[in-house]
């Protein structure tokens, strides 16, 4: 069986994944200089996922591949400084399903990579510095659980996902969390 799904939701990058995540420090370091962030740490990823699995009675195990993509701009209270973040994650891992009569709960875990671009424009005492950091998190870790509700081939999927993916931003040499705690809702099609 194959599942193809499109999901959308909120991801709080400031809320570390329980057990596997840790608090980042890059933005808080900039806040000490440029003032508090005007925005919160939530991003809105679009998630495209592809799962296939093999059933054995009511249980199934399978492999999933998902692409996460989001952009976020941050600005600061005390000056015109800004940080723009673009991230694309390619995550893959194992999934386990229970096939009930009306709903299919699942859980999974895995790894992958995140490709990131961080653009800084920082103002200090009238002078502006620029920084562009390209980076990759090549050993993220995630775990997730959720439920699929089938409706004749198509269906609705709810996912709660926890991602540990910290990028060390070279300009400050401090980690920036690209993962965190996420909740997604979407539609899937079963082949």
């Amino acid at each position, binding site marked *: 069986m194959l599942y193809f799904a499109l999901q959308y939701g909120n991801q709080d990058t400031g809320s570390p994944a329980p057990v596997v995540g840790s608090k980042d420090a890059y933005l808080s370091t900039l806040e000490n200089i440029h003032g508090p962030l005007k925005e919160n740490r939530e991003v809105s990823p679009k998630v495209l996922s592809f799962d296939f699995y093999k059933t054995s009675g009511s249980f199934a195990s399978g492999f999933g591949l998902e692409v996460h993509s989001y952009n976020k701009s941050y600005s600061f209270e005390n000056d015109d400084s800004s940080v723009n973040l673009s991230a694309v994650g390619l995550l893959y891992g194992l999934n386990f399903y229970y096939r009930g009569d009306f709903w299919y709960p699942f859980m999974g875990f895995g790894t*992958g990579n995140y490709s990131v671009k961080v653009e800084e424009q920082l103002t200090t005492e009238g002078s502006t510095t620029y920084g562009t950091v390209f980076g990759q998190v090549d050993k993220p870790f995630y775990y997730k659980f959720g439920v699929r509700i089938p409706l004749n081939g198509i269906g609705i999927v709810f996912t709660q996902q926890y991602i540990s993916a910290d990028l060390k931003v070279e300009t400050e040499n401090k980690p920036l969390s690209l993962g965190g705690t996420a909740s997604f809702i979407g539609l899937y099609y079963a082949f």
Partner: protein
Amino acid sequence: MKIKGLLVFLAVLQIFFSREESVLAGGENFGLGPLEIRPQFLVNQPFLAMSPENTLTLKDGESRLSFGLEISNTFVNTQGPTGQITKTETARGLTLTDFLDKDGNTVNGFSLYLDAESKRKKIKYRYGLSDSLEFKLELPFVSLDGGTMDSTIESVHSMIGISNFKKGGAYRALSERNQYDYYVVKDGQFVFASTKQIYNVRGEPNMDLKWNLSEGGKVMPAASIKLSYKFANTDRSGEQKLIRSGGVDWGHYFILSKGFDNWIVYFGDGQTRIGNDHGFASSLFHRFMSMEYRFSEEDSFVFQTVSQSSIFPTSSASSRSTSGENQEQRNSNLSVPTSVSAFGYKFLSDLIFWETGFVQDYNNFGNETDFVLFWEMGVHW
């Protein structure tokens, strides 16, 4: 971190305890294998590079002889943002002053001007030492020239809305098409500076030993470990230094595969240790994930992603600048890991083996190829 460690530990533990089940399983976790394509970035060419491989080994006494060709197009111009290196400068020949920043200061770390196509031909021989142990010997021959793919790549960029005058298009429009230039500068000094095209220069051979630890079972994956060793050829005169490192390299790959009916998933994690790094990275980390869809017992479609750490070590270059355009020259995008995706087709009959595909980068970092095409075909007995 403890959870990750525990999962790895449990996976390894179950591999050893799943031997009895795996013997009964009859190879449901084996397919035709991942695409066996190594990183083709020009600066990586002299060094050993681990390539993805199947968990399955040849059986005792089986042999396979194959010939492969890998064509890659690489274009990197770290001076592109300031327009310091264009058709005019490459026509007169680049000097170190072309690699200063726009204010005339030496750029710390690496600066590159790479405009080349590499053609890596390889002859491979494999032999099954036992039913689960395989030996491989590989001998490469490498050509570096201006190639023919530049106009196609620029057209594809234009078609999907990427400007060849900007970073997304690697500033390709500033340079002549199908020219050959190979310049690597470190801390204001040339490491490589060549405009002389080379053809079929014999590279350094490498040999592999692959051991299938487990065939896995209905729950557990098959597992194999591959060890690779590159011999040293200290004759690095002239342009041969672009192909040979002159040092012994070795590496390993730990590979898992799991079958889900017609789908086989492969995962590998490994490392290359470079013996004579010439100021580049002393080790490289590799990771791949492949999904194989089996059309039949004989042929498959494969999608693959490969991540690798950079051949350029982290330098003291500052990632910040008071000038936006100068900042782009600094090498923050050369030393980060990078990823590529690959698609391919594999065929295996009783006698013939055939594999073909292409690789495309998606990070647009300066430490990877733009486009790779590859073929490999052979016979086995």
